């Protein structure tokens, strides 16, 4: 017995010659189809080398166009030639010029000898959307494709759209069910002979000649009619990305190749010298296939391929621009924002940082330099807190800050009046966990001792409006948030702070003994009464009994009555 190889070539004939030599050396019989489009200047040497080789035959050349029936015809020509010329052939394997063996050919021979009567061809029922990546599926069979996809893209697309509108639907020939799969198959002699001699073959050919990419469906469908036993997998490993482009293999993939499924791999980059040298060497041997290596290969490939479609969340860089679509901010990692805590407790950031053993930054958007933990002016990645640089592109600053610290917990404070656009960004970020003390500005305002009532009134109205807008933004946005009432915080600081520590660092065990001092709020009641009596509707006691609760974007927030 021996293996027959149908080899389709259209470029890189020096590489093809290397492959052909190696296959012949191992005792394969080969039928070569050379694309008629390739100028003879390129193919000359190859033809001269092999024209008179007893174990190789060159078929009639036809012009091949990707996506059309011409490729099936080329495969048919090669298959016919093998069956006719080499009666000793038991299995026919389809390969292209950019394939290489990953296991010794002797091993393949042994494998096929052990599997007499089995056809190895990927053959999946069409229309289940699990095999084809990017492109038409069931419509490959039901529509007409008179235009070239590569050269007449507009006409091609237009033609498909019109046919969809006209609801054109061709019927499959009787007795066939559409199947799709890789065109790099290995069929046994009996099955292939039956396919070639099928009494309805003329009808089938006519039908498939009008299908799209029939080389991925012709044999795959017909084999279902004639095969005795099908193993639906290809012996040639290939991989396609989300856009349907085949993966290229380079020298650095060498260590993985022998562990991949199958006996061949495609496509090989034409200048992958060490792949050609190693895999085509006379004494090439391969180790036992190692599952770990195969998984490592899959993981690495998926990680790199995945970049193109999904990208890394929250990364803003030269080839990925963040658009913050649908009012939804995008950052790289969860972070906590404290609002009003520094207005209520003295030295809260340092105290909190000690309790949870994590950095707690001050107001990153403070007027003047960003107040980063430990009073540094540069943070990770040399991101500077310099006010002019930060304010030059404030959103980039935050996005970079979160990206740079994405592998560690992030907590910072925020107050910064007049940064409302920025607050809305936070409120729309699903990564943000916002702790908000309402009316936190009151004690500070009280201590300012403003005697001019008109001025005071103006200040209070502005601050209340800010509070209201922020809460509106939170309830409309995507961030998780928790609203505290000032009176509550002042009355029970311990329970509020313990809960906060619990949340920022759930594993913290020892309860702190010394609480940070609250700001001086002597006379707060008198001050609020003063405001109320002057017509300002400031009502924070109302919330005194309400426990602060988490609101995530999905539930309707329970707001404190105004």
């Amino acid at each position, binding site marked *: 017995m021996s293996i027959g190889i149908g080899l389709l070539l259209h470029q890189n004939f020096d590489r093809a010659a290397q492959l052909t030599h190696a296959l012949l050396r191992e005792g394969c019989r080969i039928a070569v189809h050379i694309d008629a489009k390739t100028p003879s200047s390129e193919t000359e040497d190859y033809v001269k080398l092999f024209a008179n080789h007893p174990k190789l035959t060159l078929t009639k050349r036809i012009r091949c166009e990707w996506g059309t029936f011409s490729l099936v015809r080329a495969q048919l020509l090669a298959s016919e030639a093998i069956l006719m010329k080499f009666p000793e052939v038991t299995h026919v394997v389809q390969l292209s010029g950019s394939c290489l063996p990953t296991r010794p050919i002797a091993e393949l021979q042994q494998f096929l000898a052990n599997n007499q009567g089995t056809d190895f061809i990927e053959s999946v029922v069409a229309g289940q959307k699990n095999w084809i990546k990017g492109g038409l599926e069931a419509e490959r069979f039901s529509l007409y494709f008179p235009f070239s996809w590569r050269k007449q893209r507009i006409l091609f697309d237009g033609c498909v759209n019109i046919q969809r509108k006209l609801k054109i639907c061709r019927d499959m020939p009787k007795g066939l069910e559409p199947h799709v799969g890789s065109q790099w198959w290995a069929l046994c002699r009996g099955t292939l002979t039956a396919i070639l001699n099928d009494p309805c073959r003329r009808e089938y050919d006519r039908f498939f000649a009008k299908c799209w990419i029939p080389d991925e469906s012709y044999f795959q469908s017909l084999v279902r009619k004639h095969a005795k036993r099908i193993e639906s997998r290809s012996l040639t490993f290939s991989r396609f990305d989300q856009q349907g482009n085949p993966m290229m293999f*380079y020298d650095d993939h060498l260590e993985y190749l022998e562990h991949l499924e199958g006996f061949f791999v495609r496509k090989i980059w034409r200048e992958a010298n060490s792949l050609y040298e190693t895999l085509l060497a006379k004494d090439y041997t391969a180790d036992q296939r190692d599952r770990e290596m195969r998984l490592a290969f899959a993981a690495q490939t998926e990680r790199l*391929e995945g*970049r*193109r479609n999904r990208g890394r969340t929250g990364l803003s*860089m*030269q080839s990925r621009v963040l658009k913050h679509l649908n009012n939804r901010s995008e950052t790289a990692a969860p972070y906590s924002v404290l609002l009003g805590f520094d207005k209520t407790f003295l030295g809260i950031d340092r105290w909190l940082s000690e309790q949870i053993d994590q950095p707690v930054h001050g107001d990153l958007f403070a007027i003047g330099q960003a107040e980063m933990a430990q009073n540094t002016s540069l943070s990770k*990645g040399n991101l500077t807190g*310099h006010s002019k640089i930060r304010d030059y*592109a404030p959103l980039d600053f935050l996005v970079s800050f979160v990206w740079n610290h994405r592998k560690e917990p992030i907590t910072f404070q925020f107050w910064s009046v007049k940064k409302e656009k920025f607050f809305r960004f936070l409120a729309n970020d699903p990564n943000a966990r916002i702790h908000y003390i309402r009316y936190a500005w009151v004690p500070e305002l009280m201590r300012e001792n403003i005697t001019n009532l008109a001025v005071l009134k103006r200040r209070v109205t502005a601050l209340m409006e800010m509070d209201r807008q922020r809460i509106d933004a939170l309830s409309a946005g995507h961030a998780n948030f928790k609203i505290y009432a000032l009176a509550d915080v002042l009355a029970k600081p311990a329970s509020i702070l313990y809960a906060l520590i619990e949340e920022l660092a759930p594993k913290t065990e020892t309860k702190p003994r010394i609480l940070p001092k609250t700001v001086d709020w002597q006379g707060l009641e008198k001050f609020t009464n003063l405001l109320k009596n002057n017509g300002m509707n400031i009502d924070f006691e109302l919330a005194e009994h309400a426990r602060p609760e988490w609101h995530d974007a999905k539930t309707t927030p329970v707001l404190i009555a105004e």
Partner: protein
Amino acid sequence: MKLSRSYKLRLLRKKWQLRTWRKRKDLSFVKLGDAAFEPSGIFVFTTLRNEHHRLPYFLEYYRNLGITQFFIVDNDSNDGSAEYLLAQPDVSVWHTKASYKSAKYGVLWMNQLLYKYGSKHWCLNVDCDEFFVYPHVSKRPIRALTDWLDTRSLRSFPAMLLDMYAKENLEDIEYDAGQNPFEVLNYFDSGNYTQQNGGRYGNLWIQGGPRQRKFFANQPRKAPALNKIPLVKWKSSYVYTSSTHSLLPRSLNLTFDDRGGEKISGCLLHSKFLPDADSKISEELHRQEHYEEGQEYKAYGSQTSRNLNFWTANSTRFQNWQQLEDLGLMSSGGWA
């Protein structure tokens, strides 16, 4: 895009072509390298002035990547660069005494050579202190990249300028000609870059890095642009419009994804801050041949340039391209 706008851009492109044509007499031909017309060649285009001690490693680096031919405009060097270039078989040389500034900072010279020699080739446009890093650079030659770009029908490839600096003060750095500059300049800023979208050429505008934080903290808007598109499959109708920051037609500048994915990109490691930097800075200040009256050089000059040091405890030590990708400075964009 509106028709009128796209027509305006077309006129603009013609204007740049005309400008290029008007400067055709600037360059006087010196010599053509051996493989200047090789149909499958990948070419480097460079303008330089007094770079003798940077040249050996520059040529070596790009030869190792698989560059077959260098097209170099020598802007009147007097340090032996010209003689050195003459002795290199794979270098084509032009000489000019004309003003770098009036040739739009060398852009018009580059456009001219690209038009004449670059068409249908992948062309890499870099300065002598820029070292191109792309995904898999350590294991795959540049032709692997350009072949891959061809299969994806991509015509241009972005690479952000990454300023590299030493841990020592400028005056304490030791560098020998021919040495890999990144043995000395082995630190960079990893996370302080800003991207601005828009502009009439559609390109991204990237700023940040050590020069912005050190020299332009009070006027960040004026910090140097770091976005570059150095690698292009050239056509005779293309023009660079401002250094290698942007090109026309506009579609060549759209090298980024704004729907969540990452397109492929690389970095240009910038070895500007070698020991000769301070003498260069004072020379350029004197010549006033650089961008915006040497805004940048003025800013450097105002610092005591001999003690120049960008290093901080937050600087990142350079390892390899994977590190740059993990940090999010470049992306393999689906090239596995």
